[in-house]
């Protein structure tokens, strides 16, 4: 069972899983980090990203390299209406946002049921090649997701660390009033962070819908994974989301392969519970003052 080929396959699967988890969790952690909003409607935006890709790429035949970001852009743009109508009332209100946005999640989800019905459908694959490197099998679609997740992570990091807007975002996250006093337009910064977060969720949803299946309920699983990854890594921490995604992805792959699905779920959630007891701010988060 513990042969080199199986171990190599576990690593490959772990990378694929981690990439998906990171991609889904990035937007979630950004919204919390900047605005203290627990976006329980994150999965719904991922689902909308999936449907947007279904039409832009699957129905209208736009080349994939354009279709994937365009679909995410469409969702993020339309979501700005919800930012004005809903999200703005929940900024810096962590607990209220949980319940309010859970309601929004359901409203979007069941609107989608009425529009598309709850039937599962698929987005045409961009690549269906299966690469074989040595004895290890690498599905090309997972390779693309890994590449996009890596690029998104890097872009995210560079943007928040080195750009003017990124600096403004970090300032607003630390202390909104002082940031405003220094001339930071927090309304604009919040809107920008929201736009980026929803763009990421929709992009991840496109990949998720293409890799698995598309349905109005498909956002539930990504939302749960994003929440676990972010809790693990530390709410609001981007490196934490990366670390949490990698840990969960590899743990899933290793434990499920060698000890089965039930052990994997039991241990993964067990570790999260222990972490919440002994280090509630997560692996790379900062404790609330």
């Amino acid at each position: 069972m513990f042969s080199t080929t199986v171990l190599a396959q576990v690593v490959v699967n772990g990378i694929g899983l981690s990439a998906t988890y990171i991609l889904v969790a990035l937007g979630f952690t950004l919204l919390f980090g900047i605005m203290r909003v627990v976006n329980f409607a994150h999965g719904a935006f991922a689902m909308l990203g999936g449907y947007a890709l279904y039409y832009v790429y699957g129905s209208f035949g736009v080349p994939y390299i354009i279709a994937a970001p365009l679909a995410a852009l469409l969702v993020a743009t339309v979501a700005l209406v919800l930012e004005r109508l809903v999200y703005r009332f929940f900024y810096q209100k962590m607990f209220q946002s949980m319940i309010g946005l859970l309601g929004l999640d359901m409203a979007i989800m069941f609107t989608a049921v009425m529009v598309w019905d709850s039937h599962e459908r698929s987005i045409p694959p961009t690549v269906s090649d299966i690469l074989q490197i040595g004895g290890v099998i690498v599905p090309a679609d997972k390779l693309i997701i890994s590449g996009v997740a890596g690029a998104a992570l890097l872009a995210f990091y560079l943007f928040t660390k080195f750009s003017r807007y990124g600096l403004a975002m970090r300032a607003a996250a630390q202390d909104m009033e002082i940031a405003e006093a220094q001339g930071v337009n927090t309304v604009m910064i919040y809107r920008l962070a929201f736009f980026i977060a929803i763009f990421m969720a929709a992009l991840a949803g496109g990949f998720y819908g293409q890799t698995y299946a598309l349905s109005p309920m498909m956002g539930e699983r990504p939302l749960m994974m994003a929440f676990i990854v972010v809790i693990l890594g530390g709410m609001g921490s981007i490196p934490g989301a990366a670390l949490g995604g990698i840990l969960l992805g590899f743990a899933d792959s290793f434990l499920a392969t060698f000890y089965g699905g039930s052990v994997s779920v039991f241990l993964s959630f067990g570790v999260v519970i222990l972490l919440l007891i002994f280090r509630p701010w997560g692996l790379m988060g900062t404790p609330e003052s």
Partner: protein
Amino acid sequence: MKQALVSIAAAASLGISLLTAAAPARAQEELKIGVIAALSGGGTGWGLGLQRGVQLAIDDANAKGGLKVGGKTYKLRQVAYDDQYNAAQAKTAAERLVNEEKVKFIFGPVGSPGALGSLPVTQPAKVLQFVDGYAPAILKNEWNGGYVFRIGNSNQEFAEPIVKWIKQTMPNTRKVGMIAPNDAVGQAAVPILVNAYKRQGYDVWIEYYERGSKEFTPLLVRMMAQNVDLFELNSNAPGEAGLLVKQARQVGFKGPMIQSGGAGVDEIIEIAGPLAEGFLKYDVIDAGLPRVKLFLDAYSKKYTGILNGLSPVYYNAAHVVLEAIRRADSLDTTKVRNELEKMGGWDAPVFGKVIWTGKEIYGNDHQLFHAFLIKEVKGGKGVIKTVVQSQ
């Protein structure tokens, strides 16, 4: 002003009299037909299939002027609740249908978890329930299956013949791998299939997962490390079965794959795409038969999208039940049940002659039996590989 008030009063009284005059046209009474179906989550394909199959039978009856019972004519109306393929939700749905909607006939839920969850509500209330789940306890229970019928083959009926067919057509297979949901299906129905394989000398490896999972590659790698020759998809819902087929090929499983359970292959092709090629699947209808074609035409006239295999199963069952109500000439569920039990030989619209069976296994003849098919995915379509008769 006074004149205006008089005009309004006159108009109002005219309106009331018009409404009253229109009332006799709506004298037909309404009979609610309950449906519990998975309308969200991994079992959605099945749930929609159930709901649509029942609706088409209701449409047939309403198109003929309604259902005549005890001197009254009833217009049928479907009342559906979502159980999310979950026992607890199914129980809640059954409670609402029985206690609030006051229905006497319920179709569904899909699968064993919901059926087992809802029986404690429907059976004491003597509400007739028609289900498809494979768990033996659905018919063999503390109520002796009193007011429940299984309206399609369970794997008790088809597992053995399928395994024998596999043994004949794939003599080199020795070890079977299964990845099954960790719920009532996985724990109660899958062992019947496992035993059927073991009785034919197969070595069976089985692993469970939590319902709702999407990523199966680690479990598939685990399965492949056991040197499995044949991947059996057992009772997985269409959404999960499609992903299992797709991901099995993506991690390099090259052996044959079969699903002995669940009807309908199109949803699996939709999800797995070209990777579904060669996949074998239990199914219930031969689209080439004229009686089946009639149903398919009615389906495509009303609905778009993929036809789930449970649609014809529930369409067939709903017609059998409506005929039993007509024969009983009553909505009393005990009388209808007694008529149902006597309906052997009646020519049902999809499966033909009704055959009730199950006494030896379940202690009652509330199991409908019908012949079935094994289809193979060829060129992106499910084509009939063989027609299998039960023992």
